[in-house]
């Protein structure tokens, strides 16, 4: 599912105000940029949210994406996260069709992946797994063999790795950069 070689992960800090997400989404649509996934949640500072966007850079040069995004008044900071230097996580929920005989196999598979069993029914089982998106891809593929009834993934969230300094390459930061908005 996630062939992310031509993807970039942008971590966008925005003011948490009504309509911010709509602005980001309509900007991508209007400029013809493709989004692979997008996750939003409140950030550590009160009043701010962090949006993690995985962008398809075949649709437009990353530089234009970043610059156009940065023109939105509520966008405060944009960081590009290098996948090799960041921690990425995603959550997957799946309901899988299982006969009584197969149930044990799905439970075992889930345990191998260190996932969780959330609910067990007569003919189906709901499991969850969080981890690196690649790991979720593998798990999803294996589950598919049993018959997936419903599946939901959250889209990735990411933060820079801590182990070496300067993991976070600030693409642009209006707080410190002497600004760049137009």
């Amino acid at each position, binding site marked *: 599912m996630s062939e992310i070689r031509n993807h970039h992960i942008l971590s966008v800090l925005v003011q948490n105000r009504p309509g911010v997400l709509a602005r980001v989404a309509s900007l991508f649509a209007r400029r013809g940029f493709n989004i692979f996934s997008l996750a939003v949640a409140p950030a550590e500072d009160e009043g701010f949210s962090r949006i993690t966007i995985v962008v398809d850079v075949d649709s437009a040069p990353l530089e234009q994406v970043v610059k156009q995004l940065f023109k939105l*008044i509520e966008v405060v900071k944009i960081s590009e996260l290098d996948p090799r230097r960041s921690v990425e996580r995603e959550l997957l929920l799946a309901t899988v069709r299982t006969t009584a005989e197969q149930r044990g196999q799905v439970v075992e598979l889930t345990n191998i992946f260190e996932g969780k069993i959330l609910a067990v029914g007569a003919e189906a089982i709901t499991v969850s797994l969080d981890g690196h998106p690649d790991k979720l891809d593998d798990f999803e593929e294996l589950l598919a063999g049993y018959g997936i009834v419903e599946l939901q993934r959250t889209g990735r969230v990411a933060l820079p790795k801590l182990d070496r300094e300067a993991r976070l390459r600030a693409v642009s930061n209006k707080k410190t950069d002497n600004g760049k*908005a137009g």
Partner: protein
Amino acid sequence: MKITGAQALIRSLEMENVETIFGLPGGCILPAYDPLLDSPIRHILVRHEQGAGHMAEGYAHVTGRPGVVLVTSGPAATNMVTPLMDAFMDSIPMVCITGQVGTAAIGTDAFQECDTVGITRSCTKHNELVMSAQDIPMAIRQAFHIATTGRPGPTLVDIPKDCLTNMMDWHWPTDEEVAESLPGYRPTTKGHARMIKEAAKLILASERPLLYIGGGVLKARAAEAVRELAELTNIHVVTTLMARGAFPDDHALCLGMPGMHGNATAITAMQQSDLLINIGARFDDRITGKLSEFAKEAKVIHVDIDPAEQGKVRKPDVPIVGDAKYVTEELIKAIRDLLQTGSTQADTGAWKSRVSGWREQFPLSYAPSEPGEALKPQFCLEALRDSAPEGTILVSGVGQHQMWSSQYWTFNEPYTWVNSGGLGTMGFSVPAAIGAKVGRPDRTVWAIDGDGCFQMTAQELVTASVERIPIKVAILNNSYLGMVRQWQEMFYEERYSEVYLSPEVPNFVMWAEAMGCVGIRVDSPEEVQPAIDKANSINDRPVVIDFRVDAREKVFPMVPAGYGNDDMLLPEWQEPNRGGLK
């Protein structure tokens, strides 16, 4: 002190030094119209909200101050979409205030409810739905701040009716509070010193330099600085459609307008230059023609306050993000420093003489009409130009008449040319001229309009008559959607489809008079001058001249869509010499 949200709104506008509002009331905005009665702010009651929007633009164009619009919810807000987009494309500072249904009714499809912030999101620099009376002063301050700083543009504040009627504690936000409320908005105005130095070196080293200046020069009030730079370095200047007047047409270094209907010299100078010094322009497709054929040998210095313009179309060798005036002045200093420390400017003599050769061989020209033949639109423009009082402001619609206006007028002063460049909005000129005249009542304002354009917004002449705003309108009436006709003639084998406008209906003279204007009709060349003299002598009401011009006249030169600039079409009598454009 407790006041209503409506009172807070009007007081906020006064605090922003607003002198004039263009608008039209209705249900949701009603509460704001009551305190307006007690305010020194002049309100101009328009006949259609689109007119209010273009008036605000015209006002902003000539004064540099933001134009302000006040309208109600629903259909009034949607009527504002065109002028908002027009202002967005041409970076015009404008603040639009719309009424909205009460906060409790939002989302219920209430009468005259529409998702104004949703609809205008992509045609404003920023917009905001206010949800409490208390927030009105801050929303207004932010709207003015954002509209007028950085790359200017339109902003919109949508105010629900109950926010106008509720009480609030008056507080006018301080600069610090505004800055704190917008942590993500810090426009860069100071260009990077190292880049400026780099640019200075490139300029001195170039043998075929050209200044390519755009509307940003006017927005930044950088015309003086640009002139100094041009004279210091003795470099020719091309002025885009948005920058006409930013550098005087009668200056020896001025080559005029490049682009699709630019003149051959300006177009060719761009194509053959080895260094384009772009100040406040954006490599619009109307300038570049086919991008892969555009100015292939040129290096590029690009000065723009909007970082997203850098590299959007053409990758610059030296990008400079900053205010055009600041950067140009720094550039002048940097060049002076280099010259004083022993650097010399490359010899541009050969280039200069090539440019002069093109100018001599390929002037703008048209075939004057033979006696008894139909009137030529260019002839009318020349007569209007030659009779125009000093400092006349020219406003145009969109079409052939717009291109002829830009070509045949002589713009010697900044802020004397108002037009719809980026969006190309038919119907722009009459209301924009009214706004310009409100902004500069001391100036003569001529609107050059097409017969098609005029029919889109002419009703605002009623506004002009009633409000005593004596603009002058010259309709270059060719009975056609002329620009479209030209394309059909040239690229669709003269298959004219839906471009013919009835020549006798409407009767423009009667229509003008019905709207309280003086109407004059001109059919022949002898009538041109007396009509213009009469129009120029009337200053107590608007005047409309219906010039009946030759429908067959086309705009040349022309770089057809998809062509490279080198393949521009010249007037037929210049075609045999096109080899000279080398």
